[in-house]
Structures are given as structure tokens and as C-alpha cells.
């Protein structure tokens, strides 16, 4: 038997008094790990989305507020489609592409779907030709300034699947539809199939690769067809602008606001900043929860340890009579605190990781992975708190008068 066996045996035989403290410590670490885990992976996803999207700008009806870039057209408010033409003709510097969208509800074989109207690039090119500006490489903007490479065209734009990443396509017929990967699976539909939407038959042009966004659940058709079928008239919910770089996007805001004063112009970075701010708040809150729950845990541990010392006075006195030094007695209690902190920290890490794994995709659409560094932080801080909280009770135990072991002491 080793000295630590005495601690483990006591904990094993009398676990009840320590359970409350253990639960408090575990919950503290769970809160930290779960929220931090989700927050970190959420930030990584935002950064990754940001990289994929480039410097994008959204033009929205004035009363729209926005939390999620991908649901920018889901607010139900509209603005005239003429704004799109106005922007295209303005040839603003740094504009790489324009992607107006109109979002309506429909159903396919009684399955409710979201049908999104988009305008293919060919429409802008024909407008540019009509305006006599077809010699320019960019039909919707001016590439002076930061855009070093050609802005439009390229073989990949010819592929309708480029909609998934470029957010626009070259051509889209009036009776063609593009399906997100998820809805295609749900409908059991493949490229070349025919489906009926809003009483019109469409041919499936392609199925987009999975993007992990709500676009996976959408159907995309020509904007004018959607307007006609939905009876909305020539309106759009949003105009997405692909600017060629961050600088252009920064300068662009003023120009866009000037060009379209009755709209709300926001950059993707603003949307991301909102998301990042929410994440930052969550992160700070996780530390707050962690601190509060650990303080509760510490108070509980201190209280339980004090009562443990009182209950075990005779036992401690006996150990001292049998040759236990005050340091040995102190270590018995601090050892117990270390075990509590370690188990609470480890349990909290495991529980928090599982919680994050379950809640991450549900709450923020973020897939999370375990973060070993949180294990170290959780165990380290929980152990430190447990030991500090137990220090005074341990000292009190070590200072007990061993004479209390005698009958009339």
C-alpha cells in the first residue's frame, strides 16, 4: 500500500461528499471546452469561408439586417432589378462580377424547396454589347487598380458547377435548373432529369458539389423565369458583388452607396465581423462560466474538505500517533484535491468535447474536432483550483492535536 492508496481507498469508499464538488468542477471545464471548441472551429470556418469568397459586397434593400452571408436573400424584402443594370453600366472599379438573386418558395413532388433566381453572366455581356462596350474584358466593372488578372471568363466559368464557388455562371437557359447537392439527393434527381417547379418543367443542368452551406438545399433557375413564375415583377432580394480584392471592396462601398442611395451596402467582412464578434462574446462568456463554476467548485471543495477534516479528526490523530508527519497529513488532503481536480478536468474535457461535437453542427453549422490543448488547460486549472481551495483545510488537518486520539482528550 502506498500513501496515495490511502487517498484512493478513502475516495472509493466514501465518494458521496466529494461528488458535488466534482460535478461543479466538471461542469466548469465542460462549459469552457464546449464553447471554446465551437468558437475556435467557427472562427476557422469563417476564415475559410472568407478565403473562398474573396472580398465580397452585398447590396440589400435598406431595411434588411444580416447575420449570415449565405442567407442574404432569405429576408423577403425586394428592390428593383434595374439596380443591377445601373451597377453594371456604372463600371465601378474593382467589380469582378454581379450576382442578383431572388428567392421564392416552391415545391417539387410536394417537397417544399427554395428556388433561387440568378442572372447568368451572358446577360451582362449582352447588355455590354448593346452598350457598345464589348471590347472591355469586364462587362460589369472596371479592372483598373488592383485586379491583375482577367476578371471574367476562363474555362472554369463555363462549367455550371462553378456556381458553387464563384456564385455566378456563364450561361443558364430559361428552362434550366441547377440543384444543390443535398436537395438533389433528397429529390433523387440527376443531371439531365426533368422536374416541375411552379407548374413549369425544367431540365436539370447540373448538380452542384457539396459546399456545406444552405446553397446545398437550394434550386437555382434563371432570374427572369423565377420572377415570371412567382409573379414578383422585375425585383431581386440581393445583389452580390464579387470585388477583385480587399482594397477595391473598401473603396467600392462609397461608390456603391453613391450609385444606389436607397440600398444598404455591406461588405462580407462586416458580416464576418459580426460573426466574429459573436464568437468573441461566446469565448469571453465561456471563460466567465468557467470562472464562476470553478469558483463554485472551489467553495464546494473547501467546504467539503473542512467537513472531511472534522469528520476524520480521530482518523487523522491516529495516523499522527502512528507516525504520520504534518506534511504527510497535508499531502493526504492535497492529494485528494489533485485527484478531484484531475478527474473533474478530464471529465469536463471529455463531456465538453462530446457536447461541442453534438452542438457545433446544430447551433453554428460547424464541424468540430477535439482540441487537446483544452484538455491541458481544463485539467491544469481545475487541479490548481482544487488544490488551492483545499490548502487551508489541509493545513488545519495537519495542525490537529494528535492527543485527541486518547479516550478523554
Amino acid at each position: 500500500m502506498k500513501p496515495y492508496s490511502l487517498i484512493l481507498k478513502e475516495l472509493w469508499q466514501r465518494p458521496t461528499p466529494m461528488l458535488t464538488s466534482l460535478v461543479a468542477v466538471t461542469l466548469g471545464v465542460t462549459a469552457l471546452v464546449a464553447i471554446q471548441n465551437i468558437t475556435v472551429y467557427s472562427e476557422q470556418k469563417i476564415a475559410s469561408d472568407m478565403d473562398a469568397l474573396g472580398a465580397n459586397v452585398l447590396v440589400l434593400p435598406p431595411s434588411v439586417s444580416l447575420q449570415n452571408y449565405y442567407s442574404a436573400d432569405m429576408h423577403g424584402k425586394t428592390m428593383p432589378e434595374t439596380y443591377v443594370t445601373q451597377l453594371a453600366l456604372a463600371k465601378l472599379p474593382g467589380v469582378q462580377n454581379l450576382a442578383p438573386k431572388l428567392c421564392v418558395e416552391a415545391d417539387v413532388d410536394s417537397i417544399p424547396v427554395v428556388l433561387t433566381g440568378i442572372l447568368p453572366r451572358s446577360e451582362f455581356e449582352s447588355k455590354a454589347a448593346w452598350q457598345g462596350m464589348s471590347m472591355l474584358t469586364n462587362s460589369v466593372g472596371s479592372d483598373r487598380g488592383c485586379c491583375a488578372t482577367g476578371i471574367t471568363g476562363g474555362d472554369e466559368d463555363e462549367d455550371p458547377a462553378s456556381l458553387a464557388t464563384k456564385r455566378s455562371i456563364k450561361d443558364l437557359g430559361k428552362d434550366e435548373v441547377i440543384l444543390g447537392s443535398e436537395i438533389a439527393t433528397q429529390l433523387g434527381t440527376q443531371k439531365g432529369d426533368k422536374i416541375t417547379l411552379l407548374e413549369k418543367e425544367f431540365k436539370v443542368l447540373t448538380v452542384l458539389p457539396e459546399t456545406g452551406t444552405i446553397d446545398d438545399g437550394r434550386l437555382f433557375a434563371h432570374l427572369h423565369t423565377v420572377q415570371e413564375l412567382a409573379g414578383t415583377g422585375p425585383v431581386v432580394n440581393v445583389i452580390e458583388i464579387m470585388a477583385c480584392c480587399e482594397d477595391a471592396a473598401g473603396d467600392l462601398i462609397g461608390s456603391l452607396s453613391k450609385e444606389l442611395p436607397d440600398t444598404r451596402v455591406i461588405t462580407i467582412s462586416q458580416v464576418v465581423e459580426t460573426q466574429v464578434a459573436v464568437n468573441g462574446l461566446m469565448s469571453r462568456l465561456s471563460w466567465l462560466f468557467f470562472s464562476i463554476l470553478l469558483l463554485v467548485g472551489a467553495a464546494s471543495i473547501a467546504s467539503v474538505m473542512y467537513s472531511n477534516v472534522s469528520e476524520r479528526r480521530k482518523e487523522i490523530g491516529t495516523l499522527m500517533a502512528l507516525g504520520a508527519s504534518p506534511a504527510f497529513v497535508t499531502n493526504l488532503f492535497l492529494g485528494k484535491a489533485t485527484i478531484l481536480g484531475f478527474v473533474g478536468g478530464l471529465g469536463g474535457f471529455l463531456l465538453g468535447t462530446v457536447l461541442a461535437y453534438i452542438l457545433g453542427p446544430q447551433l453554428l453549422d460547424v464541424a468540430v474536432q477535439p482540441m487537446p490543448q483544452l484538455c491541458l488547460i481544463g485539467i491544469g486549472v481545475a487541479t490548481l483550483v482544487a488544490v488551492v481551495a483545499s490548502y487551508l483545510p489541509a493545513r488545519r488537518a495537519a495542525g490537529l492535536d494528535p492527543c485527541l486520539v486518547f479516550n478523554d482528550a
Partner: protein
Amino acid sequence: MYSLENVIKKYERHGQEVTALDETNLEIPDNDFVAIIGPSGSGKTTMLSLLGGMLAPSSGRVVLDGISLYALSVKERTKVRSTKIGFVFQTFNLIPWLTAQENVQIPLVLSGCNAQQQQERAAAMLEKVGLADRMRHKPNEMSQGQQQRVALARTLANDPQIILADEPTGNLDPETREQVMEYLTEFHQDGRTIVMVTHDEAAAKFATRTIRLVSGVVSEVKAEVQAEAA
């Protein structure tokens, strides 16, 4: 050999000074068997605590084998206690969540013996007190007499030179009391020094000397070989 030299122990209780032990001089040679008797509050436990190195005197010296116990540091005194002194308590003071064998192992854990030595020594000691078949039992699974025998085995674990017993028969029935006293006599015959505080006249008769304490003052009642008479 123990000696108490002009030992005085005073307490402060509710603002009043109480003399628990007054100007005491006493010698306890090696292999002595001393019974300390006296009414409650006479200072018997104070004397046992002083002899055990657990309670410093107000003045005077407690000397064990030529070393003044209270001139030693706490650590050194703890070492003396773990190597030279064994205790027997009225209420046995076994750790309730440990088995008989583990209880006997405690002094060996404290003195740093390895696990195998601990187990072998504890088993041998339990066998010596007739409890070889109860090694895995917890205190609450044993009778009072068996518990006191486990406590005796624990006392012997480190082979102490001195055994300090506090009312060792106080909680026992007459038959078990007799058995425990026989064990203590056996330990005495093995060459150990026994100092026993007791209210029990019959138990005191097993000792070779009886000291009476009244209001902190020592008086020798009998210094003959009483064991034969007992």
C-alpha cells in the same frame, strides 16, 4: 528508558490555569510494565500524551533513551514515534474503510516499507493475534475483541520498543479483556516496555508497577511483580 524530569503541564481553560501534571519525576526502565490509574481528570492521558511525544510539557523534560523528546523537531519526534512507540487505544481507532490487513500496514506505510514487506509483516502480526482468517475483513465486520486485536497487531507492526496503551480493555467484555491483557503481557515478556492507563483494577494487576495519579500528582502504589499475583 523513559524519564520525566520535573515535568509540569498546565492548561489554560476559560481564563483559568489548570495544572494537569504537577512537578513530576518518574523513571520507567526498559521492559517495565507500568499501569497508571486514577480518577477521571487526574492527568493520566496528559502523561500518556507527554510520553508519546504528542504534548510538550510546560516545563521539565521527557527523556527517552537519553534524548529529550521535546528538544527534537516535529519531524524528528514523528520519526521517534513511528519507530520506537506503539499505541493501543480504548476505541481501537481502526480506519473504517480499510481491511484488517491494511490497517496493520499503516505504520509500515508511514515508515516507508515496500508493499511486499508490508503485506508479509501485517499478515504475520495478524496471525500472531489469531486473526489470520480475518485479514480481508473491515472493522465493521469484526467483533470488538477482534478489532482490538487488529489494533494490537497494528501496534506491533513496526516492532516498537514501547507500547503506550490508553484504556485498552475499556470497551471489552471480561473474556476479551483477559485475552487482550494476555497479549500485552506477552509483548512485555518479549522485552517491550508497556505503559498502560486504566480504570480497571483487574487489568492493572497484570502490570509490574502501578502508579496512581491524583490531581496531577504521582504516587507509586505498588512496585512489585504483580503479574504473578494476577
